[in-house]
């Protein structure tokens, strides 16, 4: 299968009645990569994917597949493989007939068709299920049939709209790995929609975070977690502590900042951030929690005194819900093991000293 690059250029969709579902989205999915469109409900992910499939007409913008504009190509000539959230198998056809459908539409002869259907069902380990009807399969099996049906036509790209949303957690995770490894084996350019950040982090090479129709940030999975560009992304991908802060001194890449909550911060890398008013985010797992020795204990940069409101055991992690002197909330995640299984664990009501390394401070520009 030849991999192709998929490019969206200023893709926009206005639904009747002024709803701007997708607003000026431009992005590129490299050949053979998985891009995850991630965002909260209603942010325009499905609309975006359906425009790429050709099921929704864009208001403006271009869709370029393998260098060719395909914005106005009818759906049935786009050669996309699409997986729907509710599988959308043909209920009146057997598994084999479902998988054969796309080949039939392409005029593939009976013998060749049967062989390719068999191969496709082998690929998803359902070779003995050809004669069954979709209603006689479990959810996971149905989605594998849908996958076989989409792959058998050797599509130029694979589009997945929350394909695992209806499956239980365990099955979802194994299907994530299965789809990921199939996709890599076939080198198939893939765009998937999800509102589950874990799914995006597990499966995708690149993550595009959308918010109210806009593309907030597109970056590799690790980078989007470590270096969120906007406050929305920082809050959406994993949890974050936020400080509204003012830059008091700059020293090359590094800077001193004063947070509105009274905490003073030392950032190592300001990146390309301009201006004095910024937001500093700190991941909860970077914050250490220590008992307060004396009330008058001096605090330096990247330190804060807080009151523990709640401690929640999450298996190997402890979640501390804290409150600063000025009333702002903070969260800290500690590994149960490093906290010594309870002997120095702080309890609700305790006064504690929070601290974190200066490279944990990530600075976001305020527009």
């Amino acid at each position, binding site marked *: 299968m030849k991999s192709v690059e998929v490019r969206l250029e200023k893709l926009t969709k206005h639904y009747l009645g002024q709803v701007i579902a997708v607003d000026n989205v431009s992005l590129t999915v490299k050949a053979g990569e998985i891009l995850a469109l991630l965002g909260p409900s209603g942010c325009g992910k499905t609309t975006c994917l359906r425009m790429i*499939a*050709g*099921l929704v007409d864009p208001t403006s913008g271009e869709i370029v597949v393998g260098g060719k504009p395909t914005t106005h190509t*009818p*759906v*049935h*000539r*786009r*050669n*996309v*493989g*699409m997986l*729907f959230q*509710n599988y*959308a*198998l*043909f*209920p*009146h056809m057997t598994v084999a007939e479902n998988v054969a*459908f*796309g080949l039939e*539409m*392409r005029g593939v002869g009976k013998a060749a068709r049967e062989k390719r259907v068999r191969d496709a069902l082998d690929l998803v380990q359902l070779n003995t299920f050809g*004669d*069954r*009807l979709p*209603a*006689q399969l479990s959810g996971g099996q149905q989605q594998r049939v*849908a996958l076989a*049906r*989409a792959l058998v*036509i050797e599509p130029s790209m694979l*589009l997945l709209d929350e394909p695992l949303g209806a499956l239980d957690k365990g099955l979802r995770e194994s299907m994530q790995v299965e789809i990921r490894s199939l996709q890599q084996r076939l080198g198939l350019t893939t765009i998937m929609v999800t509102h589950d950040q874990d799914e995006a982090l597990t499966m995708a090479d690149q993550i595009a975070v959308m918010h109210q129709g806009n593309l907030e940030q597109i970056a590799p999975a690790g980078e989007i977690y470590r270096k969120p560009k906007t406050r929305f992304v920082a809050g959406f991908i994993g949890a974050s502590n936020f400080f509204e802060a003012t830059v008091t001194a700059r020293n090359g890449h590094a800077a001193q900042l004063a947070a509105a909550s009274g905490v003073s911060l030392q950032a190592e890398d300001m990146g390309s951030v301009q201006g004095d008013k910024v937001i500093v985010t700190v991941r909860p797992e970077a914050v250490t929690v220590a008992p307060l020795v004396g009330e008058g204990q001096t605090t330096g940069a990247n330190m804060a005194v807080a009151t523990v409101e709640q401690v929640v055991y999450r298996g190997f992690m402890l979640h501390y819900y804290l409150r600063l002197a000025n009333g702002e909330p903070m969260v800290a995640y500690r590994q149960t093991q490093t906290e010594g299984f309870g002997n120095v664990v702080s309890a609700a009501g305790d006064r504690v000293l929070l601290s974190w390394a200066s490279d944990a401070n990530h600075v976001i520009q305020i527009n």
Partner: protein
Amino acid sequence: MSDFATMKQATAPRDGALLWKSIERRLFSPGILILPLAIFLLFFFFIPAIRLMTFSVMTQNAQGVIGAPFTLAHYIRFFEVDLYQKVLWSTIRISLITSFLAAILAYPVATVLVRGNIALTRIITLIVIAPLAVSVVVRAYGWQLILGNGPTGLLNYVLMNLGIIESPLAILFSDSAVVIGSLHIFFPMMVLPLSSALGKIDPNIQQAARTLGAPAWKVFVRVTLPLSLPGLLAGFTLVFSLASASYVIPALIGGPGSQMLGNMVEQQVLAVYDWPFGATIATILVLIVILINAISMKLLGGRRIKANAS
């Protein structure tokens, strides 16, 4: 003593509630709920219908009394006389054409009903349902005005003034007029079951077919049509049954060649006073309708068996 009194007080209302529960359960059991309708149908439908059918195998003497001996002579007569054969086939032909046309016209309408926006859906429902509020007789006279064969018939008048035709069409008092009239009257019976069936199809399934390379017409043939078959068959059966039993429409806007079995029953009973032969025709009409219903059930049943197989 006082213990006993309180106990009794405590249990009495509960017993009452239990008693009421069991009365309620019996009162609202399915058997009781359909009883009034069952009694009504027994006296006003089943008994008269069976009586009429038994007439068809009895003899009417010179005094007009119907009774023994039992005979199949009326049925033999029906199938031996050309006129009756002609009427039988024109009934079947007109009903089939009406049902087919209704099905073809109903698909787009039902699709819009199901997939269109709410305002459009309401307007179309109104247009489709509205004719039901007007008596068949009134509508038949309406069609007489519209289809009138002279140059003053509304349709001819419009077409001639638009220069589309030169001499007036002769639609009124023909098979076509009966088909048009029946179509108008029975169209809702096709649209309603069909749109209910189409509404049950997940639009993602049709879209999946499109992404797999099926152009719109193939999506219809391979996906929409088979999945809406229950609605289509229900509508087809309804329209066929109702159209084949028409009486007013062929009488008022049909020609001599488009008289249907219903009109013949009327002639036999009211003009010729031949009750047994009228009953024979009526029975044959009922058998045709039962046959069509059986065929459609068989088609649906076959599908269900396939769905449950393996």
